């Protein structure tokens, strides 16, 4: 197929079913990189990673290396991490601080905004037609920030960031609002994980309440036993997080899921977030100092377990987790998990959120282990009957004010993801 003009691929998704080919065909994967990840706003990093001019962090967008950097003017920019001369990475490692960027191949230097600064023996270019004005490091076509979360789009055209996020942005608002000082920062490291499955298989699981009592049967029982035996609050918390997957169909069926435009969605909370611990009461008091009692209740009462920003980011607002989904190949996906620290909150709030990450997002998570196994089985099974279709019709949805309402037992959010998939894939690029 011609990757630029062939739009017949959109026919591989219908309302309520998807063709098996879209999970395993490398040509379709390449199209997705171009048409979905090449167009959507993708999360790059958090402003707190680059607090001062010259601070930078590297990232990957649709398999392309980029640099998020704070310029001398205080603005955060996103540059392609590639020297315009011979293409080498300019910044290596995860990040750091520079006065200017210097390519380690021939020593070209660039200002923090990517503008070419110097070329050793630049006079050698005299009379060659070399145009200095075309030798800057390139900016990613669009970059913008929403309350500290930095996104970029590889496409010059399309909806702006606010329009792209739509009403789902309320999840990011809720995260920031939960911080007593009204600000978040990345803190406490990152889990970099690999999954041997297509990226869409992972997204289809994010609000799937019908899998928990089947897939997580091996862990929620031990979780319950550990919770009742735990002698300290942090151990009890971790065990309860594991045990929460024991909720039955009735409970999952009462859990509200909302699907928004462009494939985004969120799900109400099902893990206990409040606590009787002194640090938690202290936290609530600090939040009330800034927001007042009524507003604090509204912020803490907005309990969403997770939210999906299609196609590349998911957050757990209550526990301050942020997942970045990076497809590497049709059958290989990288997921990085970060923890955000609420500025002004007691230290144990962050420690609890780190413990949450250790429990459900670590490569060693006894919850995730069974998810990963099932994703792998889907990937291995889906190549059977190459022309067959997979069903997504479970449960209904109803129109709501800002999105379609369903429950965690409905596959409405999956159908919503595939409407977005079809919209992206049907347009030439």
């Amino acid at each position, binding site marked *: 197929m011609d990757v630029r003009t062939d739009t017949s691929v959109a026919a591989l998704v219908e309302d309520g079913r998807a063709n098996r080919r879209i999970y395993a065909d490398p040509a379709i994967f390449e199209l997705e990189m171009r048409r979905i990840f090449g167009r959507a706003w993708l999360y790059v990093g958090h402003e707190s990673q680059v607090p001062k001019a010259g601070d930078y962090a590297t990232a990957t967008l649709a398999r392309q290396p980029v640099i998020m950097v704070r310029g001398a003017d205080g603005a955060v920019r996103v540059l392609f991490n590639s020297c315009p001369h011979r293409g080498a990475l300019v910044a290596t490692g995860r990040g750091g601080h520079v006065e200017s960027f210097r390519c380690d191949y021939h020593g070209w230097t660039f200002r923090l905004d990517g503008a070419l600064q110097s070329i050793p023996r630049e006079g050698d270019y005299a009379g060659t037609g070399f145009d200095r004005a075309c030798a800057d490091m390139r900016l990613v076509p669009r970059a913008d920030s929403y309350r500290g979360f930095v996104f970029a789009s590889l496409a010059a055209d399309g909806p702006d960031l606010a329009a792209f996020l739509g009403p789902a942005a309320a999840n990011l608002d809720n995260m920031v609002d939960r911080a007593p000082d009204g600000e978040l920062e990345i803190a*406490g490291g990152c*889990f970099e994980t*690999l999954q041997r499955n297509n990226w869409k298989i992972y997204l289809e699981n994010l609000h799937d309440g019908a899998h928990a009592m089947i897939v997580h049967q091996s862990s929620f029982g031990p979780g319950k036993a*550990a919770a009742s035996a*735990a002698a300290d609050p942090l*151990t009890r918390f971790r*065990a309860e997080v594991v045990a929460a997957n024991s909720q039955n169909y009735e409970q999952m069926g009462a859990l509200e899921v909302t699907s928004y435009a462009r494939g985004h969605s969120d799900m109400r909370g099902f893990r206990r977030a409040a606590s009787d611990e002194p640090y938690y009461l202290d936290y609530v008091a600090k939040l009330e100092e800034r927001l007042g009692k009524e507003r604090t209740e509204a912020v803490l009462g907005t309990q969403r377990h997770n939210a999906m920003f299609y196609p590349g980011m998911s957050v757990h607002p209550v526990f301050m987790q942020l997942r970045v989904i990076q497809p590497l190949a049709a059958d290989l996906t990288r997921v990085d998990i970060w923890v955000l620290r609420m500025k002004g909150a007691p230290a144990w709030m962050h420690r609890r959120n780190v413990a949450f990450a250790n429990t459900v997002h*670590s490569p060693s998570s*006894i919850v995730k282990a*069974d998810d990963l196994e099932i994703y792998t089985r889907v990937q291995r099974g889906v190549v059977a009957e190459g022309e067959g279709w997979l069903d997504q019709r479970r449960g209904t949805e109803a129109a709501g004010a800002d999105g379609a309402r369903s429950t965690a037992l409905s596959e409405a959010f999956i159908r919503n993801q595939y409407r977005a998939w079809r919209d992206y894939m049907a347009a030439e690029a």
Partner: protein
Amino acid sequence: MSTPGRAEVEQFLIEEAALLDRGAWEAWIALFTVDGWYWVPASPAQSDPFDHVSLFFENRPLMLMRAERLRHPRAHGVAAPIRTSRVVGNVQLVGGGDGGDILARSRFHMTEVQDNRQRVLAGTCIHRLAATDEGLRIRVKRVDLVNADTPHEAMQVFI
């Protein structure tokens, strides 16, 4: 018990590794003191398990929770059994810890096989050991993987 020397500590570490290779999780957990901790940092030279994420950070109740899940008939992730082979070496006593504890540093290589896939994990272990009437007991086992901060697939069994 009298203060054990390097040879006794090495013997203890070899027996510990054998329990893990056999999947004798409860017997391995019983080597820990009641307040013992098992810690695998997610970054090299990570100093803190509370404010920074860890690959594993488990006390005995959490270790037992993992062991119980590994034995569960519906533990899909281990439907294909995990087989491991550990080699422990370069054992050094690196000075006493608090209250007469023994601090031992060792290196390990662990080959893990599951479902036709094989990987190697390697690194340094720090054991803080207590000499008790029942023999050596682990207060803290810290495992520093040489690739602690690279992308990882699932890690289901103790390292």
